[in-house]
């Protein structure tokens, strides 16, 4: 069942006019592959699109969880400032790694992940996305294994990391260990908001998860109670015995309904809340990137100033190092401008992203709340109907 999730946001039938650009992805068919510790789940990723850069109207590839991680990391690197859609966590507990429920939850989350990327006006242009959606499995595996651990970074990047550490150390030594931060009150407010929000959401999600458990527990106890009632009914016999048996049967019916609702609750309410928490964590990562970019910009600006002063000095003394210094200064200036550009891009993007994020979350939560309320009403109705159906019989028992 593939649904259209086009960037325009409005729902379209699969037979939309091909002149309208669209892209829709579904992550389906989880299959367990491999053995023992090496075992993993693979998914079918089906892309339907009329984007010119893509092959054909439909393309199907096989992907696994670490491929999604690769995609996320690449996007995070390239599109600083954009809130990259969050991925479901790696499973900590071995036991549940292959439980049907966990697999379904993960599949749903991965599906949402890819579609969010595909419907983001900037992210959808990403070459890495194209690779992810279209490359054959060997290519994907090659790319994926390149990115594991420290080997994720290219040598130049590695150097940068060392340099950063170096400069950090020298800063500390020189007593310059003051973190460079923006003095932007609105941004401060945003940061504070994001960090607080995560706490509140995490708590809500915790209770939502517990609520799922409670449904299961209530279902179980109703089942046990039903069995006991049936046994008691068998012992009592006659009219009263029948009443107990009927009660027991209804209890068992309701037990099944509760288990079903627990699953619904998990998928339609608790997962969206978890997703919300992850999204906020993704924002925190972007905040980190912004801080980095800002720091770099400041540092480079400062270094450039120093270089400028030095250059002037050299020019005054007509040193033969002037040419070299000039060259260095030009390079530095370019770098500095680049850093400023990077920062300003992040700044601008974040402002757009935050608006979009708030709107998206209101929508997501609205849907989740609606589903939750619907589910609870549905459950309560089932409960009322089931018990109510017993009343005439009980009535008859009394007058018998």
């Amino acid at each position, binding site marked *: 069942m593939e649904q259209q999730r086009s960037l325009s946001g409005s729902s379209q039938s699969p037979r939309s006019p091909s002149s309208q650009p669209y892209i829709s992805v579904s992550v389906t068919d989880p299959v367990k592959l491999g053995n023992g510790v090496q075992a993993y789940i693979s998914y079918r990723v089906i892309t339907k699109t009329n984007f010119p850069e893509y092959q054909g109207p439909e393309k199907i590839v096989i992907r696994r969880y670490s491929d999604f991680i690769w995609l996320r990391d690449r996007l995070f690197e390239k599109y600083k400032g954009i809130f990259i859609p969050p991925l479901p966590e790696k499973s900590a507990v071995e036991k549940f790694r292959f439980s049907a429920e966990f697999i379904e939850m993960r599949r749903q989350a991965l599906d949402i992940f890819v579609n969010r990327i595909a419907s983001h006006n900037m992210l959808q242009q990403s070459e890495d996305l194209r690779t992810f959606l279209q490359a054959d499995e060997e290519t994907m595996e090659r790319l994926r294994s390149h990115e594991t651990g420290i080997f994720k970074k290219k040598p130049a990047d590695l150097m940068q990391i060392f340099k950063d550490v170096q400069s950090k150390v020298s800063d500390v030594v020189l007593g310059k260990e003051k973190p460079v931060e923006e003095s932007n009150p609105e941004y401060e407010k945003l940061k504070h908001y994001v960090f607080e929000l995560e706490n509140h959401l995490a708590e809500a999600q915790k*209770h939502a998860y517990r609520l799922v458990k409670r449904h299961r527990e209530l279902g179980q106890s109703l089942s*046990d109670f039903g069995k006991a009632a049936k046994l008691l009914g068998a012992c009592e016999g006659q009219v009263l015995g029948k009443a107990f048996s009927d009660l027991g049967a209804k209890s068992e019916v309701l037990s099944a309904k509760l288990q079903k609702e627990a699953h619904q609750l998990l998928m339609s309410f608790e997962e969206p809340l978890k997703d919300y928490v992850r999204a906020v964590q993704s924002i925190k990562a972007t905040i980190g990137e912004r801080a980095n970019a800002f720091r770099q910009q400041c540092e480079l600006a400062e270094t450039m100033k120093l270089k400028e002063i030095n250059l002037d000095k050299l020019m005054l003394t007509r040193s033969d190092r002037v040419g070299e210094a000039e060259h260095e200064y030009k390079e530095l200036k370019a770098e500095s401008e680049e850093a400023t550009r990077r920062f300003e891009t992040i700044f601008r993007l974040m402002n757009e992203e935050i608006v979009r994020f708030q709107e998206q979350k209101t929508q997501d939560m609205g849907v989740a709340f609606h589903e939750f309320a619907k589910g609870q009403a549905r459950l309560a109705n089932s409960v009322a109907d089931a018990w109510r159906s017993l009343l005439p019989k009980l009535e008859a028992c009394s007058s018998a």
Partner: protein
Amino acid sequence: MMGSENPGFEESHLFASREEMENLVLDDPLTTTTTTNNNSYSSFRSANSSISDAATRHPLSPPVLSTPAESDPLLSPPVFRNPNASDNNSYIEPPSYADVIFSPFDDNSANEINRVDSTSHDLDSSLTLSRSSSSTSDYIKITVSNPKKEQETTNSLVPGGNTYYTYLITTRTNIADFGSSEFSVRRRFRDVVTLSDRLAESYRGYFIPPRPDKNVVESQVMQKQEFVEQRRVALEKYLRRLAEHPVIRQSDELKVFLQVEGRLPLSTSTDVASRMLDGAVKLPKQLFGESTAVVAPHEVVQPAKGGRDLLRLFKELRQSVANDWGGSKPPVVEEDKVFLEKKEWIHDLEQQISNASQQAESLVKAQQDMGETMGELGLAFIKLTKFENEEAMYNSQRVRAADMKCLATAAVKASRFYRELNAQTVKHLDTLHEYLGLMLAVHGAFSDRSSALLTVQTLLSELSTLHARAEKLEAASSKIFGGDKSRIHKIEELKETIRVTEDAKNVAIREYERIKENNKCELERLDKERRVDFLNMLKGFVVNQVGYAEKISDVWAKVAEETSGYAKDSC
């Protein structure tokens, strides 16, 4: 802040703790008209809450409620008693509850849109029905209250003396035998033990409600106040059960206990310790033939165990061993097949009730947890709402905050309903626990029967031994011409012993038959009352579930309605 659809909720979104949630001012269905619940629903609700007042649920009392307006805790629940005149055991025929609690349901009731109305309306009309017929029945209403610490007045080694607690026992009754319509006494727990022991003696074969435990360990370990309160509750339950037993409520023992101030006189047969002591003193004399080795007829009506007559105890013990291991059948056995089947069935029933009672406890816990977690979820969202509103920079945040508030309010309401539901569930399913307690009484009655039988068997064996001895003596004596003075004397003595033993045997047989008859009547009573009580329990439980499920459903339907704008296109 934002427009609120629930005026009563406005001030309540600032809570941070669970205690505050308890006090959350939500829409009170009794006062607002914004909810779908209306007047008839409200009376159902308050009817439910009036159950939570004092009235203890007792298996033998009808679970009919006092009307919503009733606030006097001392007014008893209506008790229907129509003494069956023809039966000299006077067990009471319970009334038919069908008409009282439910109006006849028609098929449409399940399809009615305003379902809450129909259920509660029926309950309403049934409530008024029950109320009007209560004044013609007799009742005994007992309350235990006002525990007081008192000093032991007799000399004791401990300076300051022993302290103990007394409880004020107030009785209200319209039964003429009591002589007065309202009276009180102060009693201590020791008196209750006495009462219970004396009832056990006088009412063998009856299902006598078991008294509260002595709880010696708990009395040392628990906080005094808690323990005293626990005991007070237990005493009240016990006395009320006694008062509802059709035979025991008329007993002198109970009357004296309830009315006569002062130490409950211990009859000679109740003091176990002194009995044993007496028995130990008597035994050597018995063995050496210096005092009567026979059981006096009046003692035969009590079981040997716990009595003074150790020799009798040994004889009966020997008899019971002979019954079990001896080759020959004892002179008289439990022949009543019906009874034996019934006994086995009762045993099975007890197991099933016990099992059901355990599962009922689990169910109650699960409902409780559900309510709690739902409430915590609501609170978490209330905090989120407040947070988003305070920090809102975009309108989408305010919209979301409004949605959250809607959900949170509903969750807190639903949480309340779950907890109310549970309080009622506890009361209904408590019937199962009560009947477990009653099973103890049944065991007691059955063991009265077997010990009476054992006494009969022992006496019969004894008699046949004595007769055999007498025959031998007579045969030996007849061989001597003119008679053997010493032998003749012995024969005379033996004949006297036989006579006394015959009397005792007859008394024992009469006692055994009496107990058998009591057992039979009580079993019939148990059957009748159990059926009624269990049916009421089931009805109460089911009605309760329906009522609250409907309320909870309404709450969520509203939220679904208000968030319907977000509904996905697919169903």
